[in-house]
């Protein structure tokens, strides 16, 4: 059990800190949340800076264009960038954390050469077209059809809840290529250009009033066969690679962020008088314990995954606890700020945003199913 940095890790941390200290003050002001083109430009410009400094795709393998850092160094990267208040991955999320790693793991040499460098440089933004109106938790029930026509697939159907669709260049798309096969066996993974004829994006307004995600209408969109990842009908397995990345370290920096938020909230409580309320003070203390332990759980999971090569089911335990704890954090914030919680302010925005955490990337119920079946080995019901 070693939690401190090795000399190499300490060196990595020191250089990164230096670079962040020099670079962050040079950044332009962050755009308004509703300014999507501005956000894309801001997020990709940050990615470009990371690229130029050798920090793009820290944890990606070297032969995929990444830095090939160890999992511990990746965690140091997430921790330090968060502590320094660096921009969040934002619009680069799908490219860096889902689509890119999947292409790196499953793509041909040509596909890796085509797709990976632009993700690392911040030139191209990806979105994830998995969910459909009738296929959410039961993702394998997806129905968007792809029919082979010469050297292309012709795709017709629709996707929903697609984050960043408005500003994306590419979509990692799951389609059904064999309607007769059992549902997990007839799915194929395609990289679809978002400006292809037949793609329509309709932004959806979230409960926070913003347009975080969109609905995609696909009407006979032609996708070259060369943009298929893995074999035809093997898309489910390919997808599972992506999802395990999603549940690995995707929320790690947010665990660090939440610890900071607990402290910020404690300061707000002291300033506003809520600190005198014993129950509230203890609730903050319990959140502090929770997020500290969650960060330790990330370190544990990463150490285990480093030994095995792939993120394990421990990610589900983390996702489950983290999403609920994050909701509890902003519910507590509402008690700290009192009636201000009814006004549209920064704490409220986070409280609203937080409601998605127990839904997106596998609902809490689905995480419990995974823990019960895969970790505890409980039987499937009839």
């Amino acid at each position, binding site marked *: 059990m070693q939690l401190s940095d090795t000399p190499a890790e300490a060196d990595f941390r020191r250089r990164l800190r230096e670079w962040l200290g020099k670079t962050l003050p040079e950044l332009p002001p962050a755009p308004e949340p509703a300014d999507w083109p501005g956000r894309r430009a801001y997020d990709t410009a940050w990615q470009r800076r990371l690229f130029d400094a050798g920090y793009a795709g820290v944890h990606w393998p070297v032969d995929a264009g990444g830095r090939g850092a160890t999992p511990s160094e990746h965690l140091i990267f997430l921790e330090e960038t968060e502590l320094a208040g660096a921009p969040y991955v934002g619009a680069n999320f799908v490219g860096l954390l889902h689509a890119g790693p999947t292409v790196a793991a499953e793509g041909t040499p040509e596909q890796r050469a085509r797709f990976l460098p632009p993700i690392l440089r911040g030139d191209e933004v990806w979105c994830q077209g998995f969910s459909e109106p009738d296929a959410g938790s039961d993702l394998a029930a997806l129905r968007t059809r792809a029919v082979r026509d010469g050297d292309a697939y012709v795709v017709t159907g629709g996707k929903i809840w697609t984050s960043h669709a408005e500003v994306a260049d590419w979509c990692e798309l799951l389609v059904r290529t064999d309607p007769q096969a059992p549902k997990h066996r007839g799915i194929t993974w395609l990289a679809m250009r978002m400006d292809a004829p037949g793609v329509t994006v309709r932004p959806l307004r979230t409960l926070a009033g913003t347009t975080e995600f969109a609905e995609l209408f696909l009407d006979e969109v032609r996708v070259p066969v060369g943009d298929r990842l893995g074999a035809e009908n093997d898309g489910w397995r390919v997808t599972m690679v992506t999802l395990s990345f999603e549940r690995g370290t995707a929320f790690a920096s947010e665990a660090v962020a939440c610890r900071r938020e607990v402290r910020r909230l404690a300061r707000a409580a002291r300033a506003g008088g809520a600190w005198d309320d014993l129950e509230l003070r203890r609730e903050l*203390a319990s959140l*502090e314990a929770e997020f500290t*332990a969650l960060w*330790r759980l990330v*370190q544990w999971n990463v150490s285990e995954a480093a030994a095995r090569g792939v993120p394990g089911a421990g990610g589900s335990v983390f996702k489950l606890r983290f999403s609920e704890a994050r909701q509890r954090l902003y519910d507590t914030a509402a008690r700290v700020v009192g009636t201000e919680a009814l006004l549209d302010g920064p704490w409220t925005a986070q409280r609203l945003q937080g409601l998605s955490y127990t839904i997106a990337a596998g609902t809490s119920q689905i995480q*419990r199913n995974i823990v019960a079946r895969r970790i*505890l080995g409980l*039987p499937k019901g009839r």
Partner: protein
Amino acid sequence: MDFRLTEDQGRLRDGLRQALTDRRLDWEELTGIGVFQLRVPEQDGGLGLGLPEAVLVFEEAGRAVLSGPLVGTEVAAAVLGLGGRAEVVRVPARGPVLVPELPGLDHVLLLRPDDSLAVLPAAACDASPAPAVDPDRPLWRLEGDLPPGERASAPQARRVAADATLLTAALQSGLAARAVAEAVAYARTREQFGQPIGAFQAVQHLCADMLARAELARVAVYAAAVSGDPGEIAGAKLLADEAAVRGARDCLQVHGGMGFTWEARVHRLLKRAWAWEQAGADRDRCLDALATHL
């Protein structure tokens, strides 16, 4: 960083787990394998190990729900260099001062409300037996004025309090893991409506939450043992208490009517979890300690 157990740590844990699965080791056997000399330096006849190894051992003791003054005896040896059986007892905010298994003890390490530590010879304590809820942990109630005893230094007092809290958290985390294992084993075999009850999602989700609590507690205990940070120790105890107490309750629920019987022994998990919840530092104390760091 590599948070995984080292090979030696893994062997220590696995060996003890196996030994405790085969049968219940008695006090002499536990002493013989060095459970109470774990952190005593080698030149003084101990094993010269650290807190991380100690929490691994106490986690296994918790999983086996071992009885006896485990924590106090280890801490007395490691921190105060005292041989013999000892129990760490804190003067509670409410209720009588209760000492488990007093007649078998040599020392009572009494933590007073001002956080000072007095080492009392057990024989000098005026006490009477009190009916205990946990049948394997008989209690004595201290009566009259507490003897002054020998006052330990402030750093010793702090270490005794912190180590006792962390080792008790380790016991609780082991007990929580045991509760998950018992619940899952029962859920896989007990059938109702023509299928194992473990196939019902309501039961599955109870078990999944139990595991999530136990895992988070385990990792928190390990990390606190490595960092030695007082805030992390308080947090680990908080999470381990929650994992143990709620885990034992859920385990009882999964057992249905059987869980309410004396024979099924599920109640022993819960009763012990309640006892350990009050040992070391209790919930309020942990929360208040954490709040001072915020």
